[in-house]
């Protein structure tokens, strides 16, 4: 046993920073906190403005399929629910991701492992440019160019696949459908997903790729055996980032989707919507009470995208740790 008085007194360990270090720390800390504060303020503001709606409608605001402000003088006659829009956001985003992820994988693998060096530089630059195109341009283009093309595709697609409920269109009206919006969103998120995929694929360990070759593997064998398993979780993170963008997209969806307040699973039919385009559509002429409802809808969208992005960074970080 060591006597208490024999235990040497602990010395204080102080690390002192130079003035420059201290100033730098302050600046960095402030900057870091600032973005968190802004994020928190946005959430608080939306909650404050939309709180009345949540207390009036409760959970039915999220599930409801009716958007009727009733008598503008009497708020108790209003029935407001964003269920159809929220579902629309999910459906269009899922269509976008289902199309975008395989394309992004193919493009990323081509750029990293097959393309000649010059083409690689060009493709990378082009993808960055595509990512920078304003969404309203995508929207106009989608309306003017993509719409007739998708309409042409939708007719035979419906004819062959109408035994699957989501592909059948009893109304016979195609046009501005969730499928069109989904395809457009896919084109918008492909650059994001591709750039994440490219980054994770480029970090695939060279020694394992060599090992595949030394075992008589082809290039595709090495990619399937090493690169794709290695990039799997990073790719999920990239897909989530793309999903975040697709969920929040406003103008492009506004221009290419008929706003209809019915939950519509028939992706080829001309009816749908998403939360962001609902807000954009109703904002200009909203009554005071309706405005609160739009704020509440904004909060729901905010939380959903935040959740998706948190999941994305969680998954990406976890894949980094494995490295």
């Amino acid at each position: 046993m060591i006597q208490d008085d024999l235990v040497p007194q602990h010395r204080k360990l102080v690390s002192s920073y130079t003035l420059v270090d201290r100033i730098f720390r302050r600046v960095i800390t402030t900057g870091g906190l600032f973005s968190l504060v802004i994020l928190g303020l946005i959430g608080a503001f939306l909650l404050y403005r939309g709180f009345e709606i949540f207390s009036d409608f409760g959970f039915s605001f999220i599930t409801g399929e009716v958007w009727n402000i009733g008598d503008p003088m009497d708020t108790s006659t209003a029935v407001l629910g964003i269920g159809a829009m929220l579902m629309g956001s999910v459906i269009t985003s899922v269509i976008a991701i289902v199309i975008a992820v395989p394309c992004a994988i193919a493009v990323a693998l081509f750029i990293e492992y097959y393309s000649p060096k010059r083409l690689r530089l060009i493709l990378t630059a082009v993808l960055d440019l595509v990512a920078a195109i304003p969404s309203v341009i995508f929207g106009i283009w989608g309306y003017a160019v993509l719409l007739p093309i998708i309409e042409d595709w939708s007719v035979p697609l419906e004819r062959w696949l109408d035994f699957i409920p989501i592909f059948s269109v009893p109304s016979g009206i195609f046009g501005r459908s969730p499928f069109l919006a989904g395809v457009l969103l896919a084109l918008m998120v492909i650059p994001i997903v591709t750039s994440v995929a490219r980054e994770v694929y480029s970090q695939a360990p060279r020694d394992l790729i060599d090992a595949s070759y030394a075992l008589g593997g082809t290039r595709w064998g090495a990619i399937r055996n090493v690169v794709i398993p290695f990039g799997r979780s990073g790719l999920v993170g990239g897909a989530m980032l793309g999903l975040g963008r697709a969920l929040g997209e406003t103008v492009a969806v506004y221009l290419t989707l008929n706003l209809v307040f019915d939950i519509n699973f028939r992706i080829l039919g001309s009816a749908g919507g998403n939360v962001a385009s609902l807000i954009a559509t109703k904002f200009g002429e909203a009554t005071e009470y309706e405005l609160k409802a739009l704020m509440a809808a904004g909060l729901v969208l905010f939380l959903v995208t935040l959740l998706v992005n948190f999941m994305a960074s969680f998954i990406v970080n976890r894949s980094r740790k494995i490295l």
Partner: protein
Amino acid sequence: MDTPNLETKEVINSNIQMEPTVMNDTTRRNADNLEAKGESGLETRGVHAWFDKHHALADVSLHFPENTVTGLIGPSGCGKSTFLRLLNRMHEFIPKAAMAGQVLFEGNDIYADDVNAIDMRRRIGMVFQKPNPFPAMNIGENVVAGLKLSKIKSDNKDEVIEDCLTRAGLWNEVKDRLKSPGGSLSGGQQQRLCIARSLALKPDVLLLDEPCSALDPGSTLRVEETIVQLSESMTIVIVTHNMQQAARVSDYCAFFLSDGGPGHLVEADLTTSIFSNPKDTRTADYVQGRFG
């Protein structure tokens, strides 16, 4: 490095308890073999290698007789590993790499236009410096990974796994946990797993690039035992920085050196001759630890 043990390989090997019959089998070792230009084994003729404009290796002509172990020795940067990677066409995966000369395998130039490099690599296996089992696969899957990559159907995968792991000297250590990930093994076990993985393709030649440089002495010994046992049925070329290792496992030794210019072959001979009676003073200096 201490003055290397210049006694014969047999004496050194007796320390690691090799089968005496194997180690005393001198019939296959003959200095003339190095000159033999036959249809057998692996042979290089006037091989050069470049990385872009850097001339890394110049004019190497060597013969690796069948079922022998040849050690490639020499200081860092002398082109040993480059030379090894030329022997199974791994060199060409490095951007801007180039080569000249011929590599003959069973009398055929492996760089000829009509040779399928992928099939050829299945017959000339390679084990790397850093143990690199596939992390997404368990031990058993790692062993048959080459079969999967080559789309070779095997009805008795379990037998292949047991056979290869046994020949790599790993079976007894892992037979109860074939389903655990390859990364859960120790470094030495991982390296023997990588050897087993190469064996599954039944190669005629096995190239080893400093296979023990990341391993502790005990694991090194186990890998060396494996190499000596394997050399009964296949041709082995091993790059090593460890003089004692070269003395312990190899039948022949080739000494490479770069004196400012491209690396080149200084001398190749029976390992016993290289260590006891080298023709070139630079070889003597190197194997006795005076430089490198």
